[in-house]
């Protein structure tokens, strides 16, 4: 049986969206991200520690932390946009609706 609407069996396009310009160097460290999340009430999972035979300790901050931070940022963005959501003033909305055909970008 074929499901016309389900996309689960379809090939999902994998595409990397790189920005147009070189992003400025970001000084925010992973530690700062963790601190920001902690301040926002989202506790990131603790980092893993790897001990070598020489006695050196290497801290491995998991990629998982960044994914969690992104999810939190998306949720925060959603809340922020909802909190600031506004409608156009009546006259501005009327002008928009009544001039659509003339405002279209060719």
């Amino acid at each position: 049986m074929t499901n016309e609407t389900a996309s689960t069996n379809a090939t999902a396009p994998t595409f990397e969206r790189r920005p147009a310009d070189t992003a400025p160097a970001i000084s925010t460290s992973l530690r700062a991200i963790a601190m920001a999340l902690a301040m926002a009430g989202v506790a990131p999972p603790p980092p893993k520690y790897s001990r070598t035979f020489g006695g050196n300790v290497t801290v491995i901050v998991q990629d998982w932390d960044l994914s969690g931070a992104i999810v939190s940022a998306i949720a925060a963005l959603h809340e922020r946009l909802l909190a600031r959501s506004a409608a156009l003033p009546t006259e501005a909305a009327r002008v928009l609706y009544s001039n659509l055909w003339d405002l279209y970008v060719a």
Partner: protein
Amino acid sequence: MADFAELARLHLPEYLTPKQKEDLWKELREFPTIGSFYMAPDEDERTLQGDGWRGLIVLRFETGERRPLTGLILSNSCDIAPANPRPLPTNVVFAPLLALDRYAERLRAVGQTKQQVDSVLETIRHQEVTSLFYLPAQPYGPVESVAFFDDVHSHPTADFLGGSRTRIFRLSLPAFYALLVKLSIHFCRLQEGLTRPAAA
């Protein structure tokens, strides 16, 4: 909440490097200020959600007039990909772009004061109007414009893909995520203020 967050993580792009993820995180935090709203042009011919394409056609309901124009693709990338054959024809769903400078002119023409016009434009530029997605004039982007989610059209996919068309822009990842958030806010309201009791 924790389960939801874990599910959401699974849908994040796995192919991003840690640096790219960090950039994405920072841009999302600073939205609506996005440093690079658009990607640099490339030869990719696919039509993806959030792309701006010239060659889409709108029909004017009142007169039947048709006009090719530039629109923002709202269909998900999967459903309009030729690599995914469908048992029935699909349509490309899009919102035409509206030029912001001409909109400002129309507002002034009906007697809106400079302060009123500036206020409307500022609200739009801060992405505060839920029915509009603001597209800034940045390198590799369109003229400063908006896509109006209440003015949505469709174009048969086969006709669009086989016709004369040009990609005008492609959103960067943070801009794409912002579009998805705005689409969800405009079209999906979990809290609509109505109890919907099931029929007995």
